[in-house]
């Protein structure tokens, strides 16, 4: 099950003049797979940053980055190089060790969540039977990372930002997990591959249209909650620059900051892929078997998740930021009860 698409190429290694032990072969393939995913995640984050700048600029009737490369395409790469050679400033009174561990933890957890995402029928690193629950579980490392980053910086704003970030993410984790439950009820599996298989055969098979309107409600709830979980506007309170400067990464600079930033955009893509896998058919084509082979599954999953990312960006540059009490109100008094209603509706519909 280790990257099945690469498994067929094991034969190449067998032509080597010496025999490699079995575990070493798996490790080599995993290394290749992990590198690919890491590079893809990084590139996706860079693309996300570029899209964010361009889309926001065009929405506000300006051009955005134009200087580096045609239409500023290379701008984010230039930024990456700039970040690489920037000085890494650690405040004198900070806890140096935890200041270092926090970005490592956040990025590693985000990357590990990518391992179970199916990009096509075979293009999945770890076809985990409890993939969905695993994604929810592994993202709790991000919360701990935020608290630790805030605490280690020894800065009032960082600490408060970290605490707020944690409170916000955990509050929205409840409606998000409840919303995915209805999908699991319908499919009867937590394996993301199975969930996509169930939705194959055209867009009318997508779960979002099943048991209308309950799954539609679930999708909306999941989308709103995921906005909050990745700290996107209108729920970007942890880094509300007018109140908290930059939230938990106020005292971060250079590469460590870049890692937080990368993880944030990778997370954005992650929730996009998860939402489209759960509700919008994942890698399956919206036209049944038409255009559903070869490279097309990858194409479809990217199209779907980038549409969701576009909506995220659109929302960010359209809506004002909410207040903390409104945030808690939305999470606990609106989304959670409605998520229960969605589960109840799907449940009743299914047993009747």
């Amino acid at each position, binding site marked *: 099950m280790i990257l099945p698409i690469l498994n067929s190429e094991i034969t190449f290694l067998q032509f080597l003049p010496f025999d490699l032990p079995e*575990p070493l072969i798996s490790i080599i393939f995993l290394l290749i797979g992990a590198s690919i995913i890491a590079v893809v995640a990084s590139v996706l984050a860079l693309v996300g940053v570029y899209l964010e700048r361009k889309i926001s600029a065009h929405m506000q009737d300006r051009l955005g980055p134009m200087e580096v490369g045609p239409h500023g395409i290379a701008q984010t790469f230039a930024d990456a190089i700039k970040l690489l050679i920037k000085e890494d400033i650690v405040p004198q*009174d*900070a*806890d140096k060790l*935890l200041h270092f*561990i926090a970005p490592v933890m956040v990025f590693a957890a985000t990357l590990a969540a990518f391992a179970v995402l199916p990009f096509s029928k075979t293009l999945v690193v770890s076809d985990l*039977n*409890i993939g969905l*629950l*695993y994604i*929810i*579980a*592994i*993202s*709790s*490392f991000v*919360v*701990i990372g935020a*608290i*630790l980053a805030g*605490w280690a910086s*020894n800065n009032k704003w960082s*600490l408060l930002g970290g*605490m707020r970030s*944690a409170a916000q993410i*955990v509050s929205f*984790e409840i409606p998000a997990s409840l919303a995915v439950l209805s999908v699991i009820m319908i499919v009867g599996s*937590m394996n993301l591959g199975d969930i996509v298989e169930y939705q194959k055969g055209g867009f009318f098979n997508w779960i979002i249209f099943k048991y209308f309107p309950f799954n539609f409600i679930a999708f909306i709830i999941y989308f709103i909650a995921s906005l909050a979980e990745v700290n996107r506007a209108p729920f970007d309170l942890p880094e509300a620059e007018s109140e908290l400067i930059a939230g938990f990464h106020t005292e971060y600079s250079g590469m460590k900051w870049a890692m937080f930033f990368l993880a944030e955009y990778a997370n954005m893509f992650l929730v996009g892929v998860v939402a489209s896998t759960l509700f919008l058919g994942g890698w399956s084509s919206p036209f049944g078997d038409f255009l559903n082979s070869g490279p097309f599954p990858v194409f479809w999953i990217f199209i779907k998740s980038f549409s969701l990312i576009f909506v995220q960006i659109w929302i960010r540059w359209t809506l004002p930021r909410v207040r903390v009490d409104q945030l808690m109100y939305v999470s606990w008094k609106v989304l959670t009860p409605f998520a229960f209603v969605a589960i109840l509706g799907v449940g009743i519909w299914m047993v009747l």
Partner: protein
Amino acid sequence: MNITLFDTIFYLLAFLTLGSAAIMVFSKNVIYSAVGLLFTFFGVAGIYVLLAADFVAVVQVLVYVGGILILLLFGVMLSNKITNIEITTETLHFLPASLVVIGIFVVLYRVFITTDWNPVGSYNFDPTTHEIGTLLMTDYLIPFEIASILLLGALIGAAYIARKD
């Protein structure tokens, strides 16, 4: 003497678990203790996976790391008015405690080593979630419903105690 990959991973995870548990116990800084505890929980989750308990392992990460540890961190932050970055804790009765604990360990070790547990030879690594769900709805129905009452009691009680000032 043939060490498989499985064994290697077991020793790695055991080292991670015990090492971070030691950091948790012997660190003076409470936040470091919490970080040690984080890696202990994670290591224990890995051990569960090696024991073919995939669902329990993920639940371990979800509840312990994602829930209890956050609660503990909040508790640390809320219950200290500190003048220094160090949130310290003192230890007392170091010597008698170590003696007692080592004594208990020796007893446990003797029991574990000398008892013939009669282990079964074959075991499988099948996914467990479906079966756990079925058991929860049949054999373990009463504990399951009682757990909800326990959680209700904990929620109401803890909210009441925390609110009162």
